[in-house]
């Protein structure tokens, strides 16, 4: 059973610095414990590389990704509700047909996977960890994907309006 008080706290977005501190400390903790640089995309890549026989051992980032799943599941159980919204954002509001939404998410996901792999990381790997470590490539990648994502979101907003 979910404690209503816990549910209220978890379903209310905390100040930005609370989440920022948790993620920043995770970067420091992973380095202090495993001497590794974290990134969520690396988890998917580790699973892919193991499943396709490119590596014989499952990379540690796959376990990190499993942890992300587990952490979100624990959150969901403790909160007694979701923080994932209704339907799927602008996609399910704009397209009534599920046969449009699914393929668009698939294509979007492929761009995320291919693009982030090429850039050497995603929002967590480049945007949070790489920049904290002072990697110039991560600053360039982060500035690029932020600017492009903002530009494309404004474009989508214009088109669907």
């Amino acid at each position, binding site marked *: 059973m979910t404690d209503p008080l816990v549910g209220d706290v978890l379903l209310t977005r905390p100040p930005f610095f609370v989440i920022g501190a948790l993620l920043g400390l995770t*970067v420091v903790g992973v380095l202090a414990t495993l001497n590794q640089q974290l990134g969520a995309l690396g988890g998917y890549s580790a699973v892919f590389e193991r499943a396709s026989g490119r590596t014989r051992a499952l990379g540690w980032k796959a*376990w*990190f990704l499993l942890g992300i799943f587990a*952490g979100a*599941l624990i959150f969901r159980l403790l909160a007694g509700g979701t923080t994932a919204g209704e339907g799927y954002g602008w996609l399910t509001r704009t397209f009534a047909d599920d046969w449009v939404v699914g393929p668009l*998410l698939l294509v979007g996901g492929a761009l995320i996977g*291919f693009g982030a792999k090429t850039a050497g990381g995603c929002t967590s790997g480049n945007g949070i960890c790489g920049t904290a470590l002072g990697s110039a490539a991560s600053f360039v990648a982060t500035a690029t994907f*932020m600017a492009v994502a903002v530009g494309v979101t404004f474009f989508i907003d214009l088109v669907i309006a």
Partner: protein
Amino acid sequence: MKGALASRVAAVGFGAVFGFAISWGQFTDPDRLREMLLLEDPYLYLMMVTAVTLGFVGVRLLRRLRVRALLTGTPVAWTTTRPEPRHVAGAAIFGVGWAMTDSCPAPIAGQLAQGVAWSLFTIAGVLVGIGLFFRRQERSQANAR
């Protein structure tokens, strides 16, 4: 073997903190992400600045204090990379996918855990994208030989 198990447990533990935090910060909600990308809500940017600042100071403190990593016993160290064209090209492609889905690799795992079945499409797409990356990389390596 014992060390490998401890490393896996630690990786799952740190991942769990990460997954819990992004769920609490509502980064699992595509509409929240969209508001941030439409510059209506500064939360994402302020959160990232906090995380990066704290991480920046924290990892340098570890190095300054010559800390050895708890499970590997090796001195804390990391590598940095100089920018190359692939960082811009790849990040631009990633940015388009991020804007289309209003999500990225960590939040889609969080969405799945929170019961959003749509995220299965995005996850499948990410794996396809990674596959295309390796195919392209292996093809260009074969051509170079």
